[in-house]
């Protein structure tokens, strides 16, 4: 597939490229240059440049949006809201039938859900609240869903929360995770986050029950705060890492290395 990636040199981008690069033809775009190690095609482009995004999308089979900007009021709306408008117009104009949008879990499940309830799942109506990052992404999602519905564009939305390296549980610009001390209840390894995008790119449309489907990209720890079973059942995503050292009191040791591997 020919895939346009918007916001591809941010936090998630490298893991998405890793998951897709040997199987698909990628055009990476971002306002920041990729590292020198990246060998593929790159175009410097801001996601709110509607004409630029439309031009970049010509001839593509799929668009993936990884763009994000959280803290500045204007830039947050430019990237998260107007960026989605650019993307969906590009999909409409070039008849691109698959768009993969990404965002934080709270664009759907804001404080009015998270602090109150359990078994939160991706079929719930969104309640982002007024937090800047959440509402700017939610409004972008609203645009994407309206376009999906009206123009028949297959929209797959992947929601994330806390991403960590599987080897040491760190993440850039975040405090180090404390082991065996309870967890952010929706924590996923970076490598599995990238793999989820590959699943979304490659899933057969017949497995999706509607034109717009949302998935929580999280392993299934036992707390039952968030329910990501749909991601396992429909998307076919199988995380390699449950990150259980975050939510067990002791390190779980293998009694039988060979048997555990199955």
């Amino acid at each position: 597939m020919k895939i346009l990636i918007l916001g591809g040199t941010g936090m998630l981008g490298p893991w998405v490229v890793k998951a897709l690069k040997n199987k698909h033809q990628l055009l990476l775009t971002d306002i920041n240059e990729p590292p020198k190690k990246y060998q593929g095609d790159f175009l410097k482009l801001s996601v709110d440049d509607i004409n630029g995004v439309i031009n970049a999308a010509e001839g593509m089979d799929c668009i993936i949006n990884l763009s994000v900007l959280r803290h500045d009021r204007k830039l947050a709306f430019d990237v998260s809201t107007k960026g989605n408008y650019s993307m969906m117009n590009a999909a409409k104009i070039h008849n691109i039938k698959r768009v993969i949008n990404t965002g934080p879990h709270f664009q759907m499940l804001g404080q009015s859900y998270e602090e109150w309830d359990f078994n939160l799942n991706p079929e719930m109506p969104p309640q982002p609240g007024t937090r800047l990052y959440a509402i700017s992404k939610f409004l972008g999602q609203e645009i994407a869903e309206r376009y999906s519905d009206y123009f028949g564009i297959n929209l797959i939305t992947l929601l994330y929360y806390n991403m960590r390296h599987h080897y040491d549980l760190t993440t850039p610009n975040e405090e180090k995770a404390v082991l065996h001390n309870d967890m952010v209840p929706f924590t996923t390894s970076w490598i599995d986050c990238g793999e989820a995008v590959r699943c979304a790119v490659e899933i057969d449309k017949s497995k999706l029950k509607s034109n717009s489907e949302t998935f929580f990209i999280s392993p299934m720890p036992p707390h039952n705060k968030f329910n990501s079973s749909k991601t396992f059942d429909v998307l076919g995503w199988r995380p390699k890492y449950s990150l259980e050292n975050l939510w067990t009191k002791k390190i779980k040791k293998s009694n039988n290395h060979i048997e555990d591997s199955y």
Partner: protein
Amino acid sequence: MKKKKNILISSNGSSIAKILSNCLVSHNTSFINDKDLIYSNPKELEKLFEKIDVYVHIGFKGFLAKDEMELIDYHTRVTYDLLFAAGKKNVEKVISISTLELYKDYEANLTVSENWETKFPLDKPELLCANLSEKVCKEFARDQVFEVINLRLGDLRKNSDTRLSEEKFKKSINLMVNLDFSLEELKQSFNSARKKGPNWINLHLQDTFEGQKFLTNKIDNLIGV
């Protein structure tokens, strides 16, 4: 005699702003102008809301934009900034002015009321923006920043099956300005402990006549039609 309210209206250049001005003559009204919306820091907007009781935000055809991106920017970011500033200055109530055109894609014989999800075409960005504006207002209500009444209006200019007379609009908007959210009709408490209604109320407003397109029982009960 009801106390005069200080009411701020989101723009002064549109036809709906002029009608609002006529309808709210019994209150102290003021308008946000284009220069007010040139700001580098959203905190600058807070001065607009000093001593304001009610803010009327026009979410449909209230802002003239040079292109679709500016229109989206106004109905998302600028709307967010204005409402954020209103919250900081403790504005007690926001009236969101929206449109019944958000139901344009339903067949005419359906009994569309406030309980129906909006369904509209995307051939022009105005309706998408009205929808986005509503969504921003709703999240401020959800976070209990202030009470919001979302008024979806029929057609104030043409004689159609959604026509809305200025007289009914005047009666309704004045009632909304003074609406007490602890009214039994709004609480719908049904033996519960609720002290007031939800912070977010949708109301559909058009004239009442045989063949009217949208049901208006909810607002008609409130204004006593």
